[in-house]
């Protein structure tokens, strides 16, 4: 009688043999076609879960299939090891983030090895080790020298619980912190930004990417491109030097319908334009607005709130003077933070006008309109009416004619704006790669010279959250000498967003041990672009978007010779696409995971 099938026993045996024989280790081989199978590297949270399995199993099955079909297959694995959760967990467990992270990595590596997957463990990367983050810092310097990194004071999303700044993408749902679900508030801080908006148009171009439509749409919405015109409204107000306020509108053809004007409560002109008799009310309203989340502010159907400043601006096209209000639904960060309100043709403006009894004037007539008052805002196209010499034109013609007039008179110009903001990379946290910048009283902002990298993260810093960067209180870290004048200077104490680390890890896998450079160009040339990328759909915007930006910027710096990391041919497989045909109850995992030995964990059992 033949011995029975015992998954645990044979898994162990063959895993040891494969490891001893290094059968999954690969090198460059010009005689065979290459295949780069990449799986999003796991965050070092401690345990792998079934979601990791979804991402890893298909890529392993496919990698094996490709190997057998004669491809030279690169299938690496690593760990995304910096970041807030490690720091928070370390704080609550009273253990250093380094120790916590490395212990988790050990556990996860063991779990991953127990899958028996084809990973080339010789190529492992761990982003929190100096040998890796030295190069993350090096990329920061490259971006800095290319004019793509700048420092600015800006209102930022602030999580009062995590005591840190959050990127827009990390604010979820109705304005909550992605990590701890605390409502997010706003704060002004001096930060480092990457000029991702410079690449907005290129990032919108998915024409050469054969990706699922859903990812493309998510990315497109993220860029949020609007075409329209910027128009200067005239300002004549005692004690205010500025003689105009600019607004952005996608509908310059509705300019004659402007019956009032709204500034964001945070707009710098608000206090100057508020007349003494309205000051108390305006101040009170501003305080109230500060407590509102961005999501609440822009929510459709929310009861409109606002305050009249007591002053007026003049519509340059109609010559009409209209009152200036502030309202929380106008955000300081979108467009110019000012809006020309056209209540007849914008739903939110109409709600506002009704609430505060402001006039409504129809200037675009829908087809078949006979002059009656419109019951709801009409946002479509039609014929211009009540619009002076422009009356009778179609809204499309009117759009062109008004823009031509604005340009001719110097009152404005056609413009394209984006919802996309520059990438805020500063984090007031300990567990990240220090930003390699030095501040000198004499020389100003001085980048750390490349030969001085890495700027080591001091192991002895107190990392408990205080709202300020923990490194600020680490004197041995902060105090340094200026690389330019050798005088006393201070280091930047913020660390980098971990999305920096994951924006280039797929380059590092090609030459993970190289000490002299971030990646070996000839190896990158051999392996890239990635042929198969699997991972979680939650990364469809942020990670994929930042990685694309990184590669486009590197291409312009001539560091790589391609401009998309995951290209036309990259098979994007994100896990939500699997869900519809995967029955979790039928999932199979290796024996050591309590399963039955089949790595292709994805299929449902065919006949129950």
């Amino acid at each position, binding site marked *: 009688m033949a011995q029975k099938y015992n998954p645990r026993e044979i898994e162990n045996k*063959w895993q040891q043999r494969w490891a001893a024989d290094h059968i999954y280790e690969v090198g460059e081989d010009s005689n065979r076609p290459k295949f780069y199978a990449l799986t999003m590297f796991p965050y070092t949270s401690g345990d792998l879960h079934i979601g990791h399995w979804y991402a890893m199993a298909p890529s392993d099955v*496919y990698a094996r299939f490709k190997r057998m079909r004669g491809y030279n297959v690169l299938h690496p694995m690593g760990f995304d090891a910096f970041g807030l959760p490690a720091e928070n967990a370390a704080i609550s467990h009273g253990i250093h983030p380094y120790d916590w992270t490395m212990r988790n990595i050990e556990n996860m590596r063991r779990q991953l090895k127990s899958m028996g997957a*084809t990973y080339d463990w010789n190529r492992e990367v761990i982003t929190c080790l100096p040998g890796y983050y030295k190069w993350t810092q090096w990329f920061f310097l490259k971006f800095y020298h290319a004019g793509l990194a700048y420092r600015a004071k800006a209102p930022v999303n602030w999580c009062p619980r995590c005591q840190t700044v959050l990127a827009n993408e990390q604010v979820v749902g109705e304005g909550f912190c992605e990590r701890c679900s605390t409502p997010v508030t706003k704060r002004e801080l001096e930060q480092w930004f990457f000029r991702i908006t410079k690449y907005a148009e290129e990032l919108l171009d998915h024409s050469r990417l054969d990706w699922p439509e859903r990812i493309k749409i998510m990315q497109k919405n993220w860029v949020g491109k609007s075409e329209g015109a910027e128009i200067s409204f005239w300002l004549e107000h005692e004690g205010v030097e500025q003689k105009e306020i600019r607004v952005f509108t996608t509908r310059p053809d509705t300019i004659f319908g402007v019956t009032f004007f709204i500034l964001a409560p945070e707009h710098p002109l608000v206090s100057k334009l508020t007349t003494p008799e309205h000051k108390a009310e305006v101040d009170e309203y501003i305080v109230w607005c500060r407590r509102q989340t961005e999501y609440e502010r822009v929510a459709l159907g929310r009861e409109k709130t606002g305050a009249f400043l007591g002053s007026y601006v003049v519509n340059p096209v109609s010559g009409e003077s209209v009152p200036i209000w502030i309202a929380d639904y106008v955000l300081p960060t979108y467009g110019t933070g000012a809006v020309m309100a056209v209540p007849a043709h914008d739903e939110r403006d109409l709600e506002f006008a009704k609430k505060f009894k402001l006039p409504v004037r129809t200037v675009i007539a829908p087809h078949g309109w006979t002059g009656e008052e419109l019951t709801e805002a009409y946002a479509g196209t039609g014929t211009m009416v009540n619009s002076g010499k422009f009356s009778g034109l179609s809204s499309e013609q009117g759009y062109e004619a008004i823009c031509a007039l604005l340009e001719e008179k110097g009152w404005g110009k056609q413009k394209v704006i984006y919802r996309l903001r520059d990438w805020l990379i500063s984090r007031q946290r300990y567990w990240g790669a220090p930003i390699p910048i030095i501040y000198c009283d004499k020389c100003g902002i001085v980048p750390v010279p490349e030969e001085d990298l890495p700027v080591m993260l001091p192991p002895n810093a107190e990392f408990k959250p205080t709202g300020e960067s923990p490194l600020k209180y680490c004197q041995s870290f902060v105090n340094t000498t200026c690389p330019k004048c050798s005088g006393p200077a201070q280091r930047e104490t913020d660390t980098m967003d971990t999305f920096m680390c994951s924006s280039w890890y797929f380059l590092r896998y090609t030459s993970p041990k190289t000490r002299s450079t971030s990646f070996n160009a000839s190896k990158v040339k051999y392996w890239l672009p990635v042929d198969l990328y699997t991972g979680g759909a939650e990364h469809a915007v942020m990670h994929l978007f930042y990685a694309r930006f990184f590669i486009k910027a590197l291409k312009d710096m001539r560091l790589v010779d391609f401009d998309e990391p995951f290209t036309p041919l990259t098979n994007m497989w994100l896990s939500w696409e699997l869900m519809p045909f995967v*029955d979790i109850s039928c999932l199979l995992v290796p024996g050591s995971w309590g399963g039955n030995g089949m790595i*292709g964990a994805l*299929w449902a059992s*065919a*006949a129950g």
Partner: protein
Amino acid sequence: MGVSRWLNRVWSLVTTHYTSHVVDPEAEKEFLHLTHKAIKEVTADLERFHFNTMLASLMEFSNYLSKVKESGVVSGFLWGEAISYFLLLLAPSAPHLTEELWNRTGHPYSIHNQSWPEYDEELAKEEEITLASISEVEAKELALSQERVKAYIDDKKLTRVIYVPKRVVNIVVAS
């Protein structure tokens, strides 16, 4: 059949001895056809990440091999060849099991360094099946009992089964 039980059956299918009784040329012809058809289907399914239909093809093929094993109608040579193809096709999905069985069937280590099997297009080609005198009920039952159809239906609720005489059986499921 659950996948776990199936893998156990694969284990005994491969590890127990095959005896050829009466070699039947017609049966061998069908055997070759179904072997190459399996290679063709599994290759195409893997290429498109259609893991569930790939698994259905492998199950269908192994069920067929089990029947042949009982009757012993193909030569020992053909049998051995088919078993090695079957293991190669299963290797990406069940790497440990297939390595063990590859070893036990006397092949050189490692199965994961072997070439993917090629198929003969002529042999893989489907012969048309004529269902001339089949009733509506029989046609529907036959369609629903196919492993490849089951893979798509899975545990979904059947909402409609449409039968067009001598042409098509259309199965609608609730998602």
